[in-house]
């Protein structure tokens, strides 16, 4: 049976009826039309669905929506500033050609955001380690690593 839950998404309070088996990714995409969060494997293996919950990177496809009660969620749509200015990580991904098909990009950017909050000045080793759970089939990762390091310096 559906339950009403409340949480904050990108600074806005949301009240929504969810089935107990729905994932947070499902609710974001299907109920809130926040399709910037991608679902690729739907099994927690690829990181495309990564969002921040209370500042921590979480794979939203295996995170039950009902667990999000009272939580503060940030998705790719909430990353730019209110006046539309890009976040430095987004700028860096664009300028460093770290984007190809773009389906892994929101997850990569959100994981990077969590990384830089924990470790504002990571080295390449630390970037590789932290982003290991985010898969990309297009880039071979080199330009993503470069974009992350570049945005840390920005």
């Amino acid at each position, binding site marked *: 049976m559906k339950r009403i839950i409340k949480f904050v998404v990108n600074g806005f309070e949301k009240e929504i009826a969810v089935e107990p088996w729905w994932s947070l990714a499902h609710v974001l995409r299907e109920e809130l039309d926040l399709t910037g969060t991608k679902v690729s494997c739907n*099994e927690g293996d690829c990181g495309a669905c990564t969002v921040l919950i209370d500042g921590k990177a979480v794979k939203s496809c295996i995170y039950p929506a009902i667990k999000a009660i009272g939580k503060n969620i940030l998705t790719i749509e909430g990353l730019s500033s209110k006046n539309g200015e890009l976040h430095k990580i987004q700028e860096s991904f664009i300028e460093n050609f770290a984007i190809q098909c773009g389906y892994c990009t929101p997850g990569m*950017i959100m994981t990077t955001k969590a990384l830089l909050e924990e470790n504002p000045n990571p080295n390449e080793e630390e970037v590789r380690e932290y982003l290991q759970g985010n898969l990309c089939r297009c880039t071979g990762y*080199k330009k993503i690593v470069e974009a992350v390091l570049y945005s840390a310096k920005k």
Partner: protein
Amino acid sequence: MGKLSVVGKSVVRIDALEKATGVAQFTSDLKVPGMLHANVLRSPHPHAKIIDIDKSKAEQLPGVKCVVTGEDAPDKRAGSAVLDQQILAKDVVNAVGDPVAAVAADNIDIAEEALELINVKYEELPGVFDPEDAMSTSPSAVVHPDLFNYEKGPFGHRRFDFDKPNVMMHYSIRSGDIDEGFRDADLIMEDRFTTARVQHCTMEPNATIAIPEADGGMTVWVAKQLLHPTRTVIRNLFDLEPSKFRLKMKYLGGGFGRGAVFEEPIAILLAMKTKRPVKLLFTREEVFLRGGNRIPMIVDIKDGVKKDGSLVAREISAILPSGPSEAFTGLVTRNCAFGAVGTYRIPNLKWDSYGVYVNEPTTGGFRGLGSTQVEWAIESHMDMLAEKLNISPVEIRRKNFLHEGEPNVNGELTHSIGVEECLDKMERFIKPDEKPKSEGMWRRGKGITVSNKYTLAPSADMARVKIAEDGGIVVYHAGDEMGQGIDTVCAQIAAEVFHASIDKVSVNAVKDTLHVPYGMGSCSSRGTYHTGNAVRLACEDAKNSLFKRAQEKLGIAPDNLEIKDGVIYEKNNPDNNIKIPELFVGYTLGGYGTYTLDGEIIGNATFLQTNNPDNPENGQIDPERAAKGERLNASYAHSSKAVEVAVNIETGEVKVEKIGVANDMGQPINPKMCEQQAEGGIGMAIGAALIEDYRVENGIPLNSNFHDYRISSFGDMPYSKNIKEEIVTAFHKDGPFGAKGFSEGAMIGIDAAIANAIYNAIGVRIKDLPITPEKVLRALKEER
């Protein structure tokens, strides 16, 4: 060639902003009012007869709008070269994953529940799984008993061997006299090389939204390469009126040759029955089962060489297991041969390749279209020959290169071959003669290869360019934007022709077959060459049209006009000029907006790359036409790859520590985007070489998910400073600004370079991909 101002510059990708902010629309993201959700019941058996399907319980489940089975589907079959695919199985299933029934329901939860209520009774049949068994004259099972009566499809090639009931394509090349060649040889070596089934693993799963239109037409959003050709296949299936049936796509979340089988018709069938929009979104497991996989090829190679390393004879036989559907295997079976054609001078060649049906999940096109697997064998074998002859791997390759103007084994005169320069660059990068240091259990070695990838012909693209009232240039083309950057490439080409800045160009992001002119689409590394050429010509046409209109105002013939930054001017007197907006009439009574008296200012063009076709029995093209330079393929991109690996002799682990790639692509349109392709090729190739193996045992797939089937991740790549991409520019006379496509070739030859480096490190030769720790340890044990 004149000085270029936009082409050749690394302008920022025009799709990057949308993709970085999450607003880029993929078909899998879309919703339509009133939309139903589909789910498909699939065969759990590799080969079985359907005895009975009971769907009554599913139909009674609240929220279920429609349940369809094979009985409801058209009798016609879909496919590429052979029309062998049923939308829903009618009486027999030929692989695990074959669609048997489909449901449309109010939401995905109900659709899923409904599947569990459908009862299918099967009678299991013996299957055929081993490719050699499948291609024999008396195989364990015949996958399509009625094969020889199937209709021919629109893509690719089929050629039956009527005594081999599972063979749907047999391609041959005969050049020179193979027996005489081997008699002349000082050394003959013969080996078998194999590869695993590899999944494309695009991050976006397959998705379709079929929307019935009020006029009886149908609009279908797809997530697939080749929009226009796909439309042709589906239209024929349902006898839809061509002008009322359209396919749409904005961005494709990765291509790599995916989408071999047609499941879009399932959504269309449900939409027709319910008269509601229907969305069908694949699970990751379905992508593995039905997305098409790289063909796990068996390549037998026999080479004859002289003492100095020159090749005198080469015999290759390749078997390509296709799964239950031909699904592009016909094309791959022929075109994989070009991997053996494009690089080396081979005085005597005998080539045979066979596409065969097996009762396993479908395979088909995959980045490289078979050249990758063939060149894996060739480039491993070149090293084995070199060692036996005691010459260097670089020398044996250099000795045998084709040169400009020289005929290859199809009889085509070589043009635009940058392989030697690629190899030189990689030799300097990897320094093959300096043995790297080994430490403890880690032994290091180096490997180097060369490779080629053709771009197909014949094929055509049209493009249209419209000049807007503010001087903006709007480009309509049919290249699928799947991450490779075709939209940006087309924008750069348009900006170059108009001497405009890139921000004056918009490329229609939604590809809609009703609005974008025909183009074959993105495949075969053809986008830059074919679509780019069509856009270039359409821009020239639009420029011409502009000049004709300006002629009246300036009193100067078009030949004496030029354009820059939206200003049309007299070449010898730039002060005599007119700006594009001045060609439009101003605001008029009756409404806002501007117009011209002669209709829209548009440019229109077709780029047709004809070819000199080959005889499928011997691969030979017409020699007279060949002498005039008429080619079999559009172009060949060339490359060299060099790696340094560390191999742990205790665990068998292999690490690629350093990699260099030199890719010959003629004129790079956007060098940074070319690096993207080069690096993406490296990532994918390391996965296919060391990790990826989609395992199927007796027809049962074992790892249809990202947990058990791992693709390369950050940690599998060398550190950034140890990855080197170089560009070689052997211009192509027919490419736009001298460009040719190379993106598939970006991954070719890396597998063999790794195997060669492993041999260099520990003295064992692995001939079966992927090179897992188990295989390395086993080989080391056998060596002892």
